[in-house]
């Protein structure tokens, strides 16, 4: 169990240090992530997703010609510790910046990293237009169904029934509307060449997601058009659950609506 403390009448999960019963398995740091420490919450899925992406870039031998464009969210903590070139975008605007980058540097591998609040709320038109244009870039969505950075608020991908800080009784279709299945929407578009939805809740899904990322980058390298990988990531803090419950919550609640699989192109 994670360590808790009593604050007033509430039992609070401590996240400022490793629980006493936890053991350090490995302190391995991937080559392209400059420092081992990050300040994201324990159990967050975003570092695994980002590590998967940078390892695919290394496997491709594209490290010295990659330009990545970051949105604004918790994952922005990684935009200044990657050993890849990074252009920081405004919230929602990464696909248009990546378009300008790719058009002027067609030989570069150009990717965006955005969360669901960034991509599906604030900048929905950007990713849809980039897909429709068949823009030869790879957009990566880290989808946890909440605004993690502000503390777990409803986004456009929050699934029905999901508790968030401002839908405490769960997302209610009548009151809050329905989630946007962005991967499925993009897969329906003409310019999208490769679309997949992965997850990082267990080793099998991490391996599968890495194959999806590799396929997306290959799509770009072959000049086939827009490629998109949606990655479901854990956010125990924003989901208000115990850290170790988050992978199962992802599988049972989030992936029940946002179903994992290759949605277009590649080997399904």
């Amino acid at each position, binding site marked *: 169990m994670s360590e808790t403390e009593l604050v007033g009448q509430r039992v609070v999960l401590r996240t400022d240090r490793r629980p006493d019963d936890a053991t350090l398995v490995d302190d391995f740091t991937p*080559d*392209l992530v*400059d*420092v081992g420490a990050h300040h994201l919450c324990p159990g967050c899925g975003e570092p695994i997703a980002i590590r998967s992406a940078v390892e695919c870039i290394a496997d491709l031998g594209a*490290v*010295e*010609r*990659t*330009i990545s*464009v970051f949105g604004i969210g918790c994952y*922005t903590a990684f*935009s*200044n*510790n*990657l*050993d*890849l*070139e*990074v*252009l*920081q*975008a*405004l919230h929602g*605007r990464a*696909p*248009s*910046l*990546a*378009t*300008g*980058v*790719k*058009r*002027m*540097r067609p030989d*570069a*591998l150009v990717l965006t990293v955005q969360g669901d609040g960034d991509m599906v709320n604030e900048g929905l*038109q*950007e990713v849809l*237009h980039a897909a429709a244009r068949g823009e030869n870039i790879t957009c990566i969505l880290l989808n946890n169904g909440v605004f993690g950075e502000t503390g777990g608020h409803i986004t456009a991908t929050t699934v029905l029934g999901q508790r968030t800080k401002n839908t405490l009784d769960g997302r209610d279709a009548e009151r809050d509307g329905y989630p946007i299945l962005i991967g499925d929407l993009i897969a329906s578009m003409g310019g999208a060449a490769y679309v997949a939805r992965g997850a990082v809740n267990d080793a099998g899904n991490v391996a599968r997601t890495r194959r999806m990322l590799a396929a997306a980058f290959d799509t770009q390298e072959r000049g086939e058009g827009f490629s998109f990988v949606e990655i479901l990531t854990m956010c125990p803090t924003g989901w208000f659950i115990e850290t170790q419950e988050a992978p199962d919550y992802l599988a049972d609640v989030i992936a029940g609506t946002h179903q994992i699989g290759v949605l277009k192109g590649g080997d399904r």
Partner: protein
Amino acid sequence: MARRLMEGSEAIAEAMVAAGCRFFAGYPMTPFTEILERMAEFLPPADGVCMNAESELEAIGMAWGAAATGARAATGSTGQGLALMQESISEMCTARIPLVVINMGRGQGDYFQATRGGGHGDYRTPVLAPSTVAEAVELVPLAFELADTWRNPVLIYGDYYLGHTSQAVETPEMVEGAVAKPWALDGTSGGSGHAKLLSSLGEAKQRDGVGYDLAEHLERAGVATLEMAAGVEPRCDVGHCDDADLVVVAFGTIGRFVRWVVKELRSEGHRVGYVRPITLFPFPADAVRQAAVGARSVAVYENNLGQMIDDVRLSLLGSCPVEFIGGLSMDSSGFGVGPEIDAPKIRARILAELERVETT
């Protein structure tokens, strides 16, 4: 050098390409549309890219991405579209990325938007306001040079008249950007241990024990902004002010009318002069103050309810009375082509102010 009859939009577009602009993105909107049309025509043969962006938000985003690679990039619109671009303009100032924004306004109601901006944070953008097609051709390369030098967006503020007036102008000269851009992204620094970061949150990497420190970064960006404000040379066109009782201040198209009227009144013996600010930011405050020495009044003519008049008052610091003799003049289209923008009518307003000054 060859002189050709060119419409303003065509001349501005040709001047941009000659100034090395290789990326343009825009969304059609009167009176900016023809600039986009011409860039779509001129850029591909020059090995450049022109994007028909799906919105103004994406237009400036695309130009931001292109500029980040070191290319000379531009976008544009009219005031309404510029309103949508404000977040990006201010953020690009903080991220220190150069860009040229062609702002073809409707009337002069966007003076505050251009010179103060509606974006967030502690930022400023130099604003160049040509009054003729020839002057626009001259200011376009300056805009790119200022943007590169100060790593900051620069606005060119024109209007319907500038875009749609045909004038014989010198064919824009090819110029090379002289400012090196070691910060520009090309991917090659990846894996070096110090891959480049171009961000409005800071450029320090965690590896160096720093990471994003907004206090440090915003302070540094603020210093750069102040250096730019002090380093960009204010420009203006001043005439007949030495013994003038009345100095008329006007910019852009209106400034061109005022200059003509003042010259006519001078030839008739009236003691009147003019100041036409060319840089709206930095505002040519010293020149305005100098021009008003000995004058009994300074009159401001703008095609709006009175916006630049604030800068005139700030320049004079109470040393001379300031009167507003302009006003909003629109036709039904709202494009800023109004019945009052007519030399005899402007002459009548200046004469009335001159008579008031000389009889009181």
